[in-house]
């Protein structure tokens, strides 16, 4: 009988190792996952972020009456950025989180006119008038940019460029941070500046949370 003794000491060791393996897993949990959302576009379609899994997605918070947004559109800087990324296969989603009655709020029809008028290359324009997507992402300014990779991870968030000015003259000296992040990403390198401080007008959220 003695030689068939099953030793619990070894079991205990195995057990502790097992526990270590199990509970250590959440330690690697990725907190940079882009929150999923459903939004209604200016054409009335419901789109979900996870529908675009497999493609990179850019979120651009915008407000056409904000001078900082106007700077980037009237100079063609935003369109240039949109074009570069969409041609590389990214999905560009512009999001308007202005509440009804506040600056930058547009109804569907006006949004369509506006998007055409400013020659935007955005694939979708989401009307987020209750601000739910904006709050989910912590969008603070217009413009405020988020770049999400094919697997739904946030790879860039922050300003469009590094000179916080409303003047178009500053563009020539500015580094476009979205393009810079995109270039790093395409090259398979770590993003040099993955998070920057956005500048511009406050997102004109509704005062009440529905």
């Amino acid at each position, binding site marked *: 009988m003695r030689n*068939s003794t099953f030793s619990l*000491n070894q079991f205990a060791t195995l057990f502790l190792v097992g*526990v270590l393996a199990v509970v250590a897993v959440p330690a690697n*949990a990725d907190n940079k996952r882009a929150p999923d959302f459903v939004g209604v576009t200016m054409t009335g379609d419901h789109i979900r972020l996870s529908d675009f899994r497999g493609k990179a997605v850019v979120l651009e918070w915008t407000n056409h009456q904000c001078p900082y947004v106007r700077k980037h559109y009237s100079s063609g800087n935003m369109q240039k950025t949109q074009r570069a990324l969409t041609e590389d296969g990214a999905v560009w989603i512009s999001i308007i989180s202005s509440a009804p009655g506040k600056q930058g709020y547009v109804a569907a029809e006006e949004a369509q006119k506006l998007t055409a008028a400013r020659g935007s290359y955005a694939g979708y324009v989401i009307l987020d008038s209750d601000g739910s997507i904006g709050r989910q992402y912590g969008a603070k300014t217009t413009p405020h940019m988020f770049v999400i990779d094919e697997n739904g991870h946030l790879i860039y968030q922050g300003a469009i460029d590094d000179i*916080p000015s409303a*003047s178009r003259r500053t563009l020539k000296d500015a580094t476009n941070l979205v393009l810079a992040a995109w270039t790093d990403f395409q090259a398979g390198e770590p993003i040099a500046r993955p998070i920057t401080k956005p*500048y511009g007008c406050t997102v004109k959220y509704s*005062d009440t949370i529905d």
Partner: protein
Amino acid sequence: MKKAQELLKRMMVVMAATVSMLLASSSFASADLGRVDATHSSAILHSEYAVAEAGETVWLGLELAPREGWHSYWKNYGDSGAAPLLYWTLPEGVTAGEPLYPTPHRMPIGPLMNYGYEEPSILLIPLSISDDFTGRSIPIGLEAEWLVCEIECVPQDGSWNAELPVGQMQVDDAARHVFRAARVALPEMAIWSSELTVYSAQSRLKLHVSEAEVEGVSDAYFFPAGEGVAEYAAEQQWSITSEGLFVDMQRLEGGVDATSGDGVLVLTFEDKSQRAIEVEAVVNQDTVVPAKAGSSPSVQALLPLWQALVFALLGGMVLNLMPCVFPVLSLKAFSFIAANSKTETGRKQEGWAYTAGIWVSFMIIVGVLLMIKSGGAAIGWGFQLQEPAFVGSLVLLMVLVALSLSGMFNITVGVEGAGQGLASQDGNKGAFFQGVLAALVATPCTAPLMAPAIGYALTQPAPVVFLIFSLLAFGLALPFLALSYSPALAKLMPSPGPWMEKLKEALAFPMYLTAAWLLYVFNLQAGATATLALLVALIVAIFGVWLWQSFSGRISRSIAVLFMVGAIAGIIYQPFSAPPGSASQESSEIQPYSEENLSKLLGDGETVFAYFTAEWCITCKVNEQVALFTDDTQALMAEKGIKLLKGDWTNRNDEIANLLADYGRAGVPLYLLFPKGQSEAIILPEILTPGIIADAINDIE
């Protein structure tokens, strides 16, 4: 005479010329360097000196005056906005420094927070002139852009081209009051040393001041100049202890790295006066989440290390009396009864093996805990019991031990062979294993003194954590270790006989009960399907053990091992685990704890009793049965209109983990009594009696 007259005339002319020149220069000087009226604000560039001088630094002031109801921004504008941008065009040898900003104000906008000025503000800019500057005046060119917002934002811009004469330095009297006002509005120079510690989701500013220096402070707020220090819209918590003044800020997890500890600290005093102080804090990065400063002074950094160590040691000893360790201790006691049959050295060795078993287990658990914490997860002591895989494995372990005691198989847990003069080596292994078992089942229990020690430990760097837990482990092991050194006691033990076999079998029953309780916890965590799967896995595992012991052939043993491994893998990977449903069967009068519920009740001026518990926490369950949910206590609470909030930590919950950390705790139980709408709670002890609760409630009346 004529000559004299001519001389006089000449002098008069010279004097007149001088006077007119002086007048001219002073009228030039009293004028500022220019005013720009933009659409929604005006801007004036002032010079403090009418005449500058080579080798000196003179000050310019840019006064920005937004229209009524509009505001301009501080250098860190907070969540949105833009800081003023100044582009200077200056001759060689003259340089403009970084502007000094007046103390900013908070301007909340919806869910966001901005920092800036609702009234005219003056930025002070130093202009340094080199020694070898030879020009007679400095041409100053400034292009400025500044943002003003009401709700909408309108960028403003202006340009200046002015000349500042150079000669012998001369203050401009007319500008004196402008610069005096500008300097009053600046924060005071940094006079106290300070440090900013940045954690994953919060940061803490510590200012080294004595309590006397900040007496009468009724509010403190830190405006960080750098990014990544604070979430601007989140409230800041402050406190003053003998260590200094602390400001705790929330920060965005995974946000911009904080690199600067600069900023402005604004102190408001009881008489409503304010004092703004420049802060140039040294930045430290830390991964371990701190306890809230000041909220419960007994567990702060105030708790000296030696005291935490003493608490840990005593707490570990008291832990022996807690219900969860009981079944295992009865095992230990049994092996001790057999002490009579062992040599003195054998006994001592076993004592140390037992101690080592406890210590190694504690170190492994703490190591894992620290690893997870550094990943940013909000967890605390007892975290392993929030993991159904762990609870499931513990059920298996308990059942196997119990079955072995019952005599179904023959596995070494250190009690078999009692009376047979078992070789001391086997005894040591058994003792070590008993230590492991004791540590594993002890974790759901909190003993008095232990909670502050653990709460303190988890805010400290890793070596201190391991030191404190080592003492806790030693404390838990100490009673038996001490007994193993007592030959007198060994002699007292009855001589071995067949009665020991019966006693051993009897000891299996507390083990089965432990398994039953763990199964109940598992069921709450993982759901009924997972519980069925666990029971099947248990039976498969037992079958495996039986197979192993019944047949000694290589093939059957391999099959046995396969069964065992399959069962354990099934338990660990939890294929049928369901998200926990609401397991609460208590009366609807008890609301679940959430920050929102608590602040709502406090906002309504209610007295709130919040208790934090977990199904696996036996101390909690005992307290609830004997003290909290007795008829008397409930009647008293009903009479006083006290609202109950229950924080259930059976499963992982960041909100509760954060609250526990706020009170310097790393685990449950925690009992908080909030007197009528006050946000400062009275902390009740970990072991409750009806009397303690009643006294606390009556005391706050």
